């Protein structure tokens, strides 16, 4: 588009146009633009295909599983013994193991994560905040296999000094470490919710003579409650799907128990256990992996959808 008005012939451009400038109205609908648009559309389609692929693989193999094990046995039986000669496929022991890990993790992550969110959003001076937030993100960046190593080789021996009856593989230390892993998630999502509370609400409370903690606990936190709840649900869904910590530290003994000092097995740990072994394809034990995966998928998907709904509603209110 090199164009400079020439002193000799100032009207040259009117006769010759701009050399090098393509003024083609069809350019924006030309083959190149359309090709690029189609490629970008395909990229977006990959994300949809991923979900469809997950559903197809899980449902496809689960159908084969449920041809051999009835839904009644799956949800009615209370034993999970695929390795024994007399096989039982009752999902409850695996669900109970997952639930126990999740409850222990929630007891750790919810109070500590929420406290961190309140501190960072309401109390911390700007410089402290600039250091604290990235440090908490580092905690989220630790690979789960490293947390698993930590649970098995550090937390369990430490707890065994206080609780000598504790087994080497147990729900308690796995649950505690899963809780530590999801602290950053609770903290960062709750902090977003607390920050979204309009300043005027807090100022109104101050004007009525409330002290800082009264403003924070009785005005700001209740106003952000829906976002905080959503952060809990998302974090717990992460705890349900956590795999390496429970595989390494919680054991491989599916059983219905309320004792966190015993070895248990979660759904995720069972999935890994089957894929680690040399179970032949096409057997009912191999297919059970997909059935358990389907239950896990439905459970976490339901929780994520619920949290998304809550977040959307809460966004509209301000």
């Amino acid at each position: 588009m090199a164009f400079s008005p020439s002193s000799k012939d100032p009207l040259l451009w009117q006769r010759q146009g701009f050399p090098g400038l393509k003024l083609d109205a069809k350019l924006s609908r030309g083959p190149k633009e359309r090709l690029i648009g189609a490629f970008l559309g395909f990229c977006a389609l990959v994300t949809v295909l991923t979900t469809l692929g997950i559903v197809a693989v899980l449902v496809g193999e689960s159908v084969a599983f449920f041809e051999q094990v009835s839904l009644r046995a799956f949800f009615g039986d209370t034993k999970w013994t695929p390795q024994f000669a007399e096989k039982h496929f009752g999902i409850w022991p695996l669900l109970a193991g997952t639930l126990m890990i999740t409850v222990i993790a929630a007891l750790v992550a919810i109070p500590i994560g929420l406290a961190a969110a309140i501190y960072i959003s309401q109390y911390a001076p700007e410089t402290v905040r600039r250091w604290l937030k990235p440090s908490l993100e580092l905690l989220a960046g630790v690979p789960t296999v490293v947390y698993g190593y930590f649970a098995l080789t550090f937390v369990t021996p430490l707890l065994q000094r206080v609780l000598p009856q504790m087994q080497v593989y147990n729900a308690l230390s796995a649950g505690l470490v899963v809780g530590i892993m999801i602290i950053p998630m609770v903290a960062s999502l709750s902090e977003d919710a607390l920050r979204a509370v309009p300043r005027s609400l807090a100022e109104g409370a101050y004007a009525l003579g409330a002290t800082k903690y009264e403003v924070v606990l009785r005005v700001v936190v209740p106003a952000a409650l829906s976002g905080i709840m959503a952060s809990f649900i998302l974090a717990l869904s992460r705890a349900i799907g956590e795999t390496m910590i429970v595989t390494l530290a919680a054991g491989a003994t599916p059983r219905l128990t309320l004792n966190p000092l015993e070895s248990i097995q979660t759904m995720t740990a069972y999935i890994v256990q089957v894929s680690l072994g040399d179970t032949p394809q096409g057997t009912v034990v191999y297919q059970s992996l997909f059935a358990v995966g389907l239950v896990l998928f439905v459970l976490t998907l339901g929780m994520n959808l619920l949290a998304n709904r809550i977040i959307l509603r809460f966004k509209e209110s301000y």
Partner: protein
Amino acid sequence: MGMVEVEAAVAARFDPRPIERRRIGQVLAVVLFFSTTFGLLVLLTLLVDVVQKGLPWLDWQFLTSYPSRNPEEAGIKSAIVGSFWMMLLTALFSVPVGIGAAIYLEEYAPRGWFLRLVQLNIANLAGIPSVIYGILGLGLFVRFFGLGRSLLAGALTMSLLVLPIIVISTQEALRAIPQGIRESAYALGATRWQVVSSHLLPIAAPGILTGVILSLSRAMGETAPLIMIGALTFIAFLPSSLLDPFTVLPIQIFNWTARPQEAFRGLAAAAILVLMVFLLLMNLSAILLRNYYERHRPH
């Protein structure tokens, strides 16, 4: 309620103890602060523990040897090379597709129910447990496409796993660009792709890069999906093609941690040290990049 009752109710809830109330607030602030630092103390404990147990095993021989039944001779050469290839291939597949999908959703797609559905789907994909992606990789890449327990199958699985992270961070970077930049470029007659390639992508580049680094560090630390597709085998060679079996650092760590012997736990700690140094460098560069970006935001 009559006037008298209202006054009585207000009087009952009135708490004229400013000094006590402030003191409760101070105690609360201290409790909140220590709760916040709890996670960091755990991280510190973890690091000290790993350094103590792993450092004696960490030497040149450890970095340049293949895994072995004898802990004295064992090393992580094949795991380091495998992790390197895994990252490279994952980036190769997931970065163009992730950025492309984000551009489509932000700049091309017509607004409407379909776009909202795709958006909801991506948010949900980000929350699906990684072991489920492993099941997908097992069913789709290992068996349906017949890629076997190969580097390629692993990298494709990992690419789908990190795709939502890249899409979401790229979308956020594109959304942060003021609308005026698009409008002025369109007003000059630029086509859609010209606007995207010459204006939006260069401006959004730091934000996109941060998301890419974070997603690749996630891919580097993931274990479960690769166990699912069958990467947990004894690998004493380097992959020479995309269809070769492989191992990566997290898998080697899992393998050694799961053994009861103390010596293998030391090896696991040493491998964790190597992995954590890599991840720390990646995370650090992402954080620095973001801080830089926040200070030099284009207007």
